[in-house]
């Protein structure tokens, strides 16, 4: 997992790689679910080196297009993949957790699988 605080160098490198599938989280300091979701996403991504997890803590690091295409607001996620890094799935992090806040592995895996499918 890579946490972007003041530089987007690693994000740019991952975006430039043709084969990567990126699970992107726009952090929301007021939401506790973000940490649980990106920890679970990291666990799921670990055995497959083309999968990467990025947590963006500062939305200012993103371009306007990225903000528009990936996230509606803090506490949202997006999965992008393929050479063009097309969005395979996006939405609020709450879609990926149970009412008790536990992350749903099956849904995170589904999001990754959709991203892996993009050429």
């Amino acid at each position, binding site marked *: 997992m890579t946490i972007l605080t003041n530089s987007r160098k690693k994000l740019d490198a991952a975006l430039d*790689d043709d*084969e990567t599938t990126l699970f992107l989280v726009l952090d929301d300091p007021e939401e506790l679910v973000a940490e649980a979701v990106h920890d679970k996403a990291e*666990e799921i991504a670990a*055995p*497959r080196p083309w999968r990467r997890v990025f947590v963006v803590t500062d939305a200012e690091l993103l371009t306007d297009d990225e903000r528009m295409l990936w996230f509606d607001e803090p506490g949202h996620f997006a999965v992008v993949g393929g050479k063009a890094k097309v969005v395979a799935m996006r939405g609020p992090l709450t879609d990926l957790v149970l009412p008790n806040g536990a992350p749903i*592995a099956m849904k995170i895996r589904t999001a990754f699988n959709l991203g*892996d499918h993009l050429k």
Partner: protein
Amino acid sequence: MIRLARVAGPLALLAACSGPERHRHTEAELQKLSRLERGLVFVERAERGGEHPISRLPGDTTAPPAGGTAVQRVADGATVDVNSRLRVQLDDSLVPPASRGTVVSSSEVEALVADAKALSEALAGIAEYREAEVNAVRLWRAYDSTRTLPEGDRAYDPFKAAVRALADREQSILDRTLRLWPTDSPEFEAVDAELNATLLGDPDATAKFARRVQGRLDALSAELQSFANRTRRRADGSGEHLRIEAVLIPAEDGKKATNVHVENYDTLDEGSVQRIDTLGLRLTDSERANLARLTVETQRVAEALRRLDAGEASFEQVVAELGADTFRGLDELVADLRALRDPEFPRRADAMEQAVEAFVRALGERLRDFADARKSAWTDAVQELIASSTALRTVAGSIEILDGLRGRWSAVEARDVPALAQETLAALKQLAEALEDAPKVVSEARALLQTLQRDVDAAPPALLGLARETWKGSALEREVGAWAAWFDRMQARAKALGELVGFARFPVRSDLTNPLALSVPIAEARDASVDLRKTPRKAGDHLQVRAKLLRGANTEDTVEPDYVVTFELAKLGWHADLQPSVVFVEGDRVAGADDSGGFSAALNWIWSYGPRDDEDDPYLSRSLDWGVGLHAVFLSFGPDNDAEIGLGVSAGLWDQRLQLGAGYNPLAESEDDGRFYYFIGSNLVPLLQALTREE
């Protein structure tokens, strides 16, 4: 201004009514309810997601609160929003909870069994999944090590193909698991953890998850077997069945009622969503047609009143002009009532009895055995019809009162209008209440007609032609048809008059049945719902829900009388409507004219609040039923009488029965040319329609 005040009297009289509150059961009444009345609970699901109980909710206690009386609202007569969804929940008293909410389609269970089997096989071959993952990682390394070299491109495609195949294999497992354990399943969290650990390569979790899948497969197989047993029972047709049908009854013509889809209870097309605009500007076809009709009739009313005001016509002439049906309708009602009292009734009864005799004789001459077998049943039915009709003769006493009032109306002076209107309203209300039994007579006459027709059609094939020939054009066919029409007409008139009088709410009913309705075994019945957004409705229409508790799948024999509930559709909450109205408009200053007032037609865009039945009286909307908005009105101030259009604001009470407005005439050349005006008015067209409506 003085003339405005003079016009205000009759208008205010028309206005001073508001709808009665919906009935609630007392504890004593509650004990007498049928199973269907107790077992079906109606809930309105509003467009924005909120739920509003219409009748009692499951789980509500019927015990009276300390020091109070337990009451439960009666669903019949409730108002629901035009953009809502009506849910019919099955109470435990009707359907055992154990069988409700479970999967009821064997094909659904079959699909789940297939999922469980495929998942079980996938887990047995989880090693292949592991190998596919290892292979994808190997190909990624091959690509990663050559990506900057010319052969890098060649390594990309095999890598991507392996990744996609792996994703498909995994997704197949995920999808099946999610179908077997949806996210709201109590086991879901444990299932999610076990599967995730399985896919990450934990052998203990794999063994545990495989056992869980096998358990689910066993349970589903048992459920499938249970279905097979139930299907056999259903094929026998034994056991109680529930049928729920819904009918949309248009406000303007009850005969144009149509079946609407009830989820889980018929095979009608669902239809597509058509939302009714709360701003009242984007009209549906049905709303547009209604507005056009109201507008034309409003203009007619305004023109007739203008002639009355100018002394060009008498009051009676004007009312007659407003709808030729108005007085004809009253005349017919009076004539029909007179027939109940005069020798006309015995004459008709004799004619009916003679017609039966003649029919049986005519038929008997040709088909003796067939006629003899049915003669007794036919005669009994006719006698029953005549007996019910006789009971209605008591209402004939109203005839003198109505006759007298008609005479007084024909010579009425303007100052007598309020008092005479009040007396007429009271007399009509009394009459309408007295005629409440008319529907029974009409349905008996219709049933008799159907029985006779069916009996004739049931004649042995070799004799059918002769039987039909004898029936067709017989005096009996004519008499029964005339009898039904006679009472039907009285009922329709009484109902229309009843609606006019104090906005009395008469039950709206339709006999329409749905040939595509399903009879569902009571043990497998599920909640029903009607999505009003998918019906061609408009505010003012009615939705009738009829529930039947049948003795079996293949019979019309019912355990208890049908439970019929009718809902009025309305725009609830804040909303706006386009409404035409008749107004008496007067210019503030019109040079050269002693009197600049006159009747005209206005079109209003009115904002108001429709309270739900479970709300108290927010914004005084229930007691005053007020609204405010904008209007456009035709102006024709003397002395030039050029037709112009004024724009302004209006406010009304009691659903715009009484309306006040003021506005600005942009076409006026000066203030002395009637630049500012004010009016008093009413949307009395619906009232006149109620009087002239043919049901």
